[in-house]
């Protein structure tokens, strides 16, 4: 039985690996291949002949046939062990550095990648067009609250001004009506008198006191709501690792280092060995990277400072949100690609979670798990099926 499950798990992993572009895959092999390549291969291989960590991919189809490539990609160690001459040579040539195995890649994936390599070598490399939709969404998201605040403040200011103006008019009128017999005052004096009068006026004083009380209450309530919220927390890390450089400029896929993000609860902090995948050849001399070497030598892991701290009582599973929910990392983490030092973008309060669960549609498309639910939902409601409708606000979905 467990075998069965694992087989299913396996097929799931295959789907997962090609997950992001599985929909587009129908349009063209190369497009699917591009995603696959960029997510899985580009860290070590270039599409042209240049060497990054591993050999360049240009002309790979001429060098090896598809069957061999598949065997190699799925399990390079086995190929080397089998004594395949080419493989052994390759292994020796590249410092006995063995390629990561991608057991989940089937023939279709390999073909797609090969198609992409071919395309990339025949045409000038297409310019990367990073889609910043997520970031925009993020801005909009928080913007709603800010916008409201601004409107509120502007309105208050206007109201205050109107009040002053009205009082001034009132004062003037009073003065006009009682002007007889009173000496003329310079406008400045009049204003002074007005202000004095304003200050002395009981109603105005009371109003001011009330206004102050209301504002103070609002401020302290806002303050209380911020207790325990660490939005913007950007601690200094033991190694000045730049996400902007790696995820932004180099466009390394998040999941390359955070290996668990599509698979499990934790996205995972990469172990030093993952850094070494590239940095045993790249920028070895950098003092920051030397720290990794030192850590490995001392056999002591690097103690990163955790940025996103959910309390232990809340169970958060990355794969539920990434693989199943189809959310981008940026949805919660913000525009990591632009952050030199990572900071906490979202409030990470329960209200924030709940709010998203109320607003977000279930990613039910093409997922048989939701089919019956979706039908049932559609029969009773015109709205789309939100996470909320599938029990997304229930306590034991996160707390157990």
């Amino acid at each position: 039985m467990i075998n069965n499950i694992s087989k299913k798990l396996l097929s799931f992993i295959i789907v997962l690996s090609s997950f992001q572009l599985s929909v587009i895959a129908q349009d063209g092999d190369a497009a699917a291949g591009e995603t696959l390549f960029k997510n899985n291969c580009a860290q070590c291989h270039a599409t042209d002949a240049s060497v990054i960590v591993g050999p360049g991919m240009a002309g790979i189809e001429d060098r090896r046939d598809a069957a061999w490539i598949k065997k190699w990609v799925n399990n390079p160690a086995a190929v080397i062990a089998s004594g395949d001459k080419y493989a052994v040579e390759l292994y020796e040539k590249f410092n006995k550095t063995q390629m990561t195995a991608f057991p989940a890649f089937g023939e279709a994936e390999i073909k797609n990648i090969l198609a992409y390599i071919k395309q990339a070598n025949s045409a000038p490399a297409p310019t990367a067009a990073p889609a910043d939709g997520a970031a925009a969404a993020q801005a909009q998201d928080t913007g709603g609250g800010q916008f409201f605040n601004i409107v509120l403040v502007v309105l208050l200011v206007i109201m205050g001004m109107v009040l002053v103006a009205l009082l001034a008019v009132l004062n003037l009128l009073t003065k006009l009506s009682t002007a007889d017999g009173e000496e003329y005052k310079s406008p400045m004096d009049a204003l002074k008198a007005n202000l004095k009068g304003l200050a002395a006026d009981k109603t105005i004083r009371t109003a001011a006191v009330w206004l102050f009380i209301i504002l103070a209450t609002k401020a302290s309530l806002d303050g209380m709501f911020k207790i325990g919220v660490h939005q913007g927390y950007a601690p200094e890390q033991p190694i000045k690792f730049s996400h902007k450089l790696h995820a932004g400029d180099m466009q390394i896929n998040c999941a390359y280092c955070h290996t668990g993000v599509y698979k499990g609860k934790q996205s995972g902090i990469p172990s030093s060995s993952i850094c070494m995948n590239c940095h045993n050849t790249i920028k070895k001399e950098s003092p920051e990277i030397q720290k990794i070497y030192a850590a490995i030598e001392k056999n002591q892991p690097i103690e990163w400072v955790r940025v996103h701290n959910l309390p232990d009582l809340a169970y958060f599973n990355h794969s539920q949100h990434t693989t199943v929910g189809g959310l981008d990392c940026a949805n919660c983490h913000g525009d990591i690609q632009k952050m030199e030092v990572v900071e906490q973008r979202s409030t990470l309060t329960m209200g924030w979670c709940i709010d998203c669960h109320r607003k977000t549609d279930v990613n039910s498309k093409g997922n048989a798990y939701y089919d019956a639910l979706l039908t049932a939902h559609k029969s009773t409601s015109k709205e789309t099926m939100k996470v909320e409708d599938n029990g997304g606000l229930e306590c034991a979905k996160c707390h157990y």
Partner: protein
Amino acid sequence: MENTNKKYWKGVEELKNDIELVKNSEREFNLEGLESGTYRRDFLKMLGFGVAAVSLAACDAPVRKSIPYLNKPEDVEPGIPNYYATSYNVGGNYSSVLVKTREGRPIKIEGNKLSGVTRGGVNAQVHASVLSLYDSEKLKDPKKEGKKTTWEELDKEVSAALASSQNIRIVSNTIISPTTKAVIADFAKKYPSAKHITYDANSASGLIEANAASFGKAVIPSYLFNKANVIVGVNCDFLGTWISPIEYSSLWAEGRKVSSAKGGKKTMSRHYQFETGMTVTGANADYRGTIKPSQEGIILANLYNKLVAILGSGSALSVAKLDTQYLDKCAKDLAAAKGAGLVVSGSNDASVQTIVNGINSLLGNIGTTIDFGTTVNYRQGSDAQLAQFASELKSGVVDTVIFLGANPVYDSIKGADIAEGLKKVKLSVSVSETETETSKLCKYIATSTHYLESWGDANPKTGYYSLIQPCISNIFNSRQAESSLLTWAGQPADYLTYLKSFWNANILGGSSWTKALHDGVLESPVASVSGATFNGNLAAAVASLKTGKGIELSVFENVTIGTGIQANNPWLLETPDPITKVTWENTANISQKTAADLGLSAGDWVNVTVGKVSKELPLVIQPGQANETVSIAMGFGRTSAGKAGNTGTEVLSFLSGATSASNLWVGDVKIEKTKSGYTLPQTQTHETYMGREAVIQETILSKYVKDPKAGRFEPKIGTSDGLKKPYSISLWNGHDKKNHSWGMVIDLNTCTGCASCLVSCQAENNVPVVGKAEVARAREMHWIRIDRYYSSDAPHERGYSIGGFKEMEKASENPEVVFQPMMCQHCSNAPCETVCPVLATTHSSEGLNQMTYNRCVGTRYCANNCPYKVRRFNWFKYFENDNFDYNLNNDLGKMVLNPDVTVRSRGVIEKCSMCVQRIQAGKLTAKSEKRRPVDGEIETACSQSCPTGAIVFGDMLDPNTKISKLLAQESEGRAYHVLEELNVIPQISYLSKIRNKDEQRNSEAVAEVKHTEEHAH
């Protein structure tokens, strides 16, 4: 090292079952020296998310450090569990298991369904063994004369001493590992004077002896309880502790399951039990008679004579006539089920076992329900060998002893002799995981490993092999026993290589090592059942039966602590004894009548005196206990088990020197009261179910066959429109369950009360241990409890008066017993939810009653308003509190915690969550694979571990699940909700208990008891 060869069960890499792939993937980059492979040893430092909270500035949040793996093992993904197949094998007790590990630490034991022996069943001791791994009081280094030493030094000195030894003895409990035996043989080759002594704390030596004499085969056969229509047990706790209880429970349950479906199975085996103290097996029997331990043989001989009379074959034995309740009936049924009966005795007296063999062969059961084709290896100990060893030791003949994990000073009757003899030996080595009573007396302790840290194999039965693989590298500076022996024998210490080559040579026979390692088992069972010819001397056997006088003491092994090997395991200590419900200590159990005769009452302590030995222990007045007997459990009263385990009273010393010693009983016992007013650490103090049919519904088979609803109590509510079913009346509209409706069905017929589910739940859900004093205050935290009810002599109708109620509170002298696992019923109209002021407990759309610990303010209103009383309050902060010095209070013990389940703080309520973490994980898997969950994919901890399959869990909305099908069959049959009239609509259904008894009025039964008593006198 060894670690890289481990075979684990996991999603991705399981792929084509290609272990090499995984192995090599770790060598992704050739960083020499970095991947020495000992990463798991350092898991304490390198948890995926080891969190060190450091408080910084006062108003700032503490900085939390994330410590990644330095070199992440490919097969460990933080947050995703790995499963390894291995085998539990402690003192001959065997179970094939899967070990769930998280971030490299084993956290849970589950049954291996691939095993043909235990068939996915696991018992309480096996579940708890994972906690023994993290026992902080284990030996941390090898020791010499009580002081820490190094392996090099120890090996040097031991090897040197061995070289000059003249007479070496290796003492162990039963070893069911063929490879370990080969290691011992190798050792003996090097040191020819070495002799291997095997003994068992609860020995089957008499059985093996008797089989040798009767059948010429010194073996234990397989008992096919599933094929027996009539089962007779004589002081034989085969569902609890005898030989292979997990296996027997599962087989026994096969014969006890019935179905209300049209054409469903409506036959049951009939189970007779004659025993001294009430055991789990007796409690589950249809007919249970009581005997004194000295009567075991006599009653069997009488049974033999009755059978001879009925069958008209064989010749009657000359034995004093002894009739006990149900014996006549038993003989009739056995004779009627000729060839499909099974008589078993737990006696360790070869004469008694010979009579049993005689009966079975007279009935033609040998070769039908008793299989000599497949023999079992669980008990190989020889009492004679042990006795000889003890006397040799005393006389100084033996100069070197190696104790291989055994602790005979504590757990054998010869303990005192051995302790004395040990002073005379030149070299004594204890190969032990913990410092035991025996190893304390040894010169050297070669610290050995827990089975979860070891390689090994097991051969529980003919044709069944299984492997043991480490799930964690050694936590302390320990070395597994076989490696130690190999080292001293001058061979390479690498036991894995040894094991592999032994398997290649002897066991694998061409099949794949990897597959065996992956599956955990390699099975080529003998297909046919074969018998043997009986040649025993019955007359001699009868003649040599031992007689007792006065009050007789019976020492028994209980389900929780067993023989005391895992005595320092707080989970086991806090698991209530299935019968007495006492935790943390053993008690003197005596019958109601004997208590009255001796002027004893509940809450007393008594002095039990046998010869010169006298011990004081608390008293339990046990319904169903034979009169003039006292039963005390072994396994307690250890002196060097540890902080938790040194509790209770040691009893084997009562037996040393007694003639009947090997059979664990002794006569002429004196009992006197010493003090009173003691509150036992008992989890259940009330004995009967007060005739409340809404709680327990039961009937007898003959009625059930006629009407599947027999014995059902269906409450009706009177309304202006006449009587209505409770569920048809509601003020509210209710809420639909659209997605899933998780529920359970619990079969009272096959629940044996073994408490496996209880420990499994405790392990899965981080349930704290509260200790003896708190249990005595009725504050145990178990999420699932097993209610044990005795029948009462009071007829139900008399209940509506003061006297009637008082009468119903008293259990019968020899009551019928029913076990009812009770946990949160996940009521759809939950009374607890309504009353929580802060919405800490609400209902999910999947039928779960959700308990949100972090919202709870602790008013306890929900617990009060729960009709099932299943909610538990955290009276104290059970972790990091010195008053509760158990596993939650030391860093090592905390390693067993399930990271998916919150550790509850003080002041909050907790309760069964129906393993919501498993449900969520299962749903997530299904969602990621874009499909609906498959039945059986999601299991709760309790349902998963039940050896008899009494608990069925699943989605009641999906018509294809086992639970839906079962409910469809039983909804007009045995299925009922406890306290249905409250209209709380639980998600948990119970199937009524069916006893395979004849219709008999209670009063007649009482009369019969009286009759037989008179007869006996």
